[in-house]
């Protein structure tokens, strides 16, 4: 998991008293409690962190949009039989993304290029941290 250290979760969640208290609780469990309790305590932090809840609300909207987009791209692929054309059409129209027949790298590139349009279609506004979490999740979901 070491490669995922890059973000600063404290900046993302802010310094609200309740969140700070929950982080302190999570810290206490890290070395002394079993993994089950450590992770459940980490879930408690997410449950009271407004930016985390906002990210999960955005994920709902993104998944609906991505579903529509990937459905359209799959239909495009079924017509043309060419994954590259399907992806190219997806990028060109910004709302058609190939799913199972393209490489994960191509899906990733398409998501990167189309991300602002997908966000616009989903009607969400996100910050840099949320963009990273959501694009990574979309790539893993489709890839």
């Amino acid at each position, binding site marked *: 998991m070491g490669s995922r250290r890059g973000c600063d979760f404290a900046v993302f969640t802010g310094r609200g008293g309740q969140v700070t208290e929950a*982080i302190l609780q999570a810290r206490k469990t890290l070395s002394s409690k079993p993994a089950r309790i450590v992770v459940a305590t980490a879930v*408690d932090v997410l449950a009271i962190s407004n930016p*985390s809840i906002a990210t999960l*609300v955005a*994920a709902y909207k993104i998944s609906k949009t991505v579903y529509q987009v990937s459905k359209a791209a799959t239909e495009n692929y079924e017509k043309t039989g060419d994954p590259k054309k399907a992806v190219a059409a997806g990028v060109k129209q910004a709302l058609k993304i190939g799913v199972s027949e393209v490489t994960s790298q191509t899906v990733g590139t398409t998501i990167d290029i189309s991300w602002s349009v997908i966000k616009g279609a989903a009607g969400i506004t996100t910050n840099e*941290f949320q963009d990273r979490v959501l694009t990574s*999740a979309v790539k893993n979901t489709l890839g």
Partner: protein
Amino acid sequence: MTDDLENTMRKLYRNVIRDLLVSEILGHKDLAPDYFALSGKKQDDIEKEIDAKSVEISDDLVSELKQREFLEKQPSDKELQDLIKEVMRRHGAGK
């Protein structure tokens, strides 16, 4: 249609929740040093538990969304926030 959407949503939530939990533990300046001071086995246990918990929460959340017909309908942000908080609390240590 809803089955495919349900699967897409389940997978996406699994990935988002896992990434949020990983970011919290490894990306928080107060937690990361303690995490990396743990034994390799404990780190592995936590990573496995994060994976399992992400599946558990996303399955529960999408089931609730389905039950409330939120896959077809468009709930308000407030309705979504309340449901997500409720499900997250259910899987937390505080319960």
